[in-house]
């Protein structure tokens, strides 16, 4: 789960990282009032969960509070990469001497957190990593020991930070480490971390991504979720504990297990079709969950056929079949369906579906071929 800049910076501040004075506004007049409080010269920053806000005109400098109001009006009416701007952060404008980068993320290959620092801050760090990886200093952190001060100093030295700032840099690094661990983040990043004209370090922008699997430990953070970034069908799916991702194709997929769900999408493509979604009903799914899954798939108007592929293990095929029947009673659809049931109670499942006018298949290849054919309006037996 991604956090907004203002949310990330609030968390940083709680962990002792200096951030600019500022607050969030949802209207232009609020933005003006905040600008007045801050002395007039402010930065108006759109709060949307995509990169490239600056380039899109979503971050603007105002020289006084009336300009702040004007810019806030413009920005609050914008859409950036399809996302509406509903909030702006109004921050005191800083006098920037130099822009740095400091971040922590999980290094999958090393199986450890990695702290990264760079003197090339303020730009996309993935771009820096591609173009000039030598400009990024990386230090792996033992997850049982935590960040040690000497490691932070090694980064400070590696990015040629003036020595009088090392103490303050170490405190910021320590604060970022606690923010990362206390929130179970997968990314905590200050970009840019600036040196101001009066020689202080300040976290001008912040980004955090939290581990969805750890949100049960942090109910206060879970509430920060911004639902704008997700399709409504994806939000609906999460309510039922379904893992669903909408795609642009015409063949809906209902599958148990993530690997098999991806494979089902791939084989549809292999035989000339396009999958309409990824959907994993999970292990041991009950009938009501299956019914919800089918409803969500059929709510997509692009869907011309549905492929149901269930390999029973913990999931029982008869239970899945009951869910399908229940959903079809309620929805009454003409969309053709191809079903393949294998494994635990598959025979019982097939009997339950015998009257449901579904196209059956034994192998995965046969199921995919038939689904692709019916989606194109071709007849199959």
């Amino acid at each position, binding site marked *: 789960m991604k956090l907004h800049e203002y949310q990330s910076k609030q968390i940083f501040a709680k962990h002792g990282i200096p951030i600019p004075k500022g607050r969030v506004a949802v209207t232009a007049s609020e933005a003006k009032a905040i600008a007045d409080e801050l002395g007039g010269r402010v930065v108006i920053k759109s709060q949307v969960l995509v990169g490239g806000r600056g380039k899109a005109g979503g971050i603007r400098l105002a020289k006084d509070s009336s300009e702040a109001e004007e810019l806030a009006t413009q920005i609050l009416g914008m859409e950036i990469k399809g996302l509406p701007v509903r909030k702006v952060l109004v921050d005191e404008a800083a006098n920037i001497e130099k822009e740095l980068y400091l971040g922590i993320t999980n290094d999958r290959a090393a199986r450890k957190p990695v702290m990264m620092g760079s003197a090339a801050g303020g730009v996309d760090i993935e771009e820096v990593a591609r173009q000039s990886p030598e400009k990024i200093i990386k230090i792996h952190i033992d997850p049982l020991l935590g960040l040690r001060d000497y490691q932070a100093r090694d980064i400070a030295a590696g990015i040629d930070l003036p020595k009088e700032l090392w103490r303050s840099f170490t405190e910021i690094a320590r604060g970022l480490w606690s923010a990362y661990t206390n929130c179970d983040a997968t990314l905590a990043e200050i970009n840019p971390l600036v040196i101001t004209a009066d020689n202080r370090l300040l976290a001008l922008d912040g980004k955090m991504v939290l581990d969805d699997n*750890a949100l049960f430990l942090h109910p206060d953070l879970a509430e920060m979720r911004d639902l704008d970034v997700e399709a409504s069908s994806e939000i609906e799916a999460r309510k039922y504990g379904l893992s669903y991702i909408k795609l642009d194709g015409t063949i809906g997929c209902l599958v*148990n*297990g*993530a*690997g*098999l769900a991806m494979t089902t999408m791939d084989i549809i493509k292999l035989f000339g079709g396009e999958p309409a979604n990824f959907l994993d009903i999970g*292990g041991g799914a009950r009938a009501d969950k299956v019914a919800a899954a089918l409803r969500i798939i059929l709510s997509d108007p692009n869907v011309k056929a549905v492929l149901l592929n269930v390999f029973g*293990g913990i999931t029982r095929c008869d239970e899945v079949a009951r869910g399908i029947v229940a959903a079809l009673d309620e929805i009454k659809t003409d969309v053709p369906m191809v079903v393949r049931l294998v494994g*635990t109670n598959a025979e019982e499942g097939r009997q339950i579906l015998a009257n449901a006018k579904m196209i059956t298949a034994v192998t995965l290849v046969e199921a995919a071929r038939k689904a692709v054919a019916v989606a194109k309006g071709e007849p199959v037996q």
Partner: protein
Amino acid sequence: MSILIDKNTRLLVQGITGKEGRFHTQAMVEYGTNVVAGVSPGKGGEWVLDGKIPVFDSVKFAVEATGANTSVIFVPAAFAVDAIFEAADAGLPLIVCITESIPVQAMMRVRSYLDQKGTRLVGPNCPGLLSPGKSKVGIIPGDIAIPGEVGVVSRSGTLTYEVLYALMQAGIGVSTCVGIGGDPINGTSFLDVLELFEADPQTEKIVLIGEIGGTDEERAAEYIAQYVSKPVVAFIAGQTAPPGKRMGHAGAIVEGGSGLAADKIKALQSVGVKVARHPEEIPSLL
């Protein structure tokens, strides 16, 4: 022979009194696995499965009383990390964690601790292991594989069943099937299992099932080129997965141009691994 589990496996089930634990213990016992004990804190002294399996309050007590040498964990995510540490501290050399949705930072601490102790963990978020005809530890259905010479290693669950089933339909048997799990940080990697299969005299060929996310398949390809003499056939799921979206498994995500199926397939093919276009093509490539 088989790898990791066989007739000498004396299994302990952590979370044996829960719904999942009870159901799968029954299935493992029916398959012939020697389940010697269960652990459920606060329920020590009870018996499960018609009085056949004793329940203990802690892993330590269970190991002392029964000589268990392997643990399988079915406890919910909130308690699973503690369960892994407990099994490791009780001295068990092999721990299999079925539980999914364990926070990734907690898993990094687990890995760091287990590496220091020399404990092997399979999983989490995995279906476990199956050595057909010998032993089953976890949730892989026992009736979809026959004994044989092919070693199977996979990051997935039901996709693994699909592959086992396709092999069985073609009359091809399996030495051991290892589900290493779909999380970004896990206990046992492709490399660990490839090393074990290479050393196992029963295993003649290897099937590797990967998916998008991370670079484990690329590293497996490098390892195969250097150390694996047995033929390897692979399948990689997620060719049609969009970038930036987590495809169910916590580890299955294309991030910053890394973790693409196409790169993994290329890496494997470049070292002579045959890559199947779909699971049902695997038997013919073997």
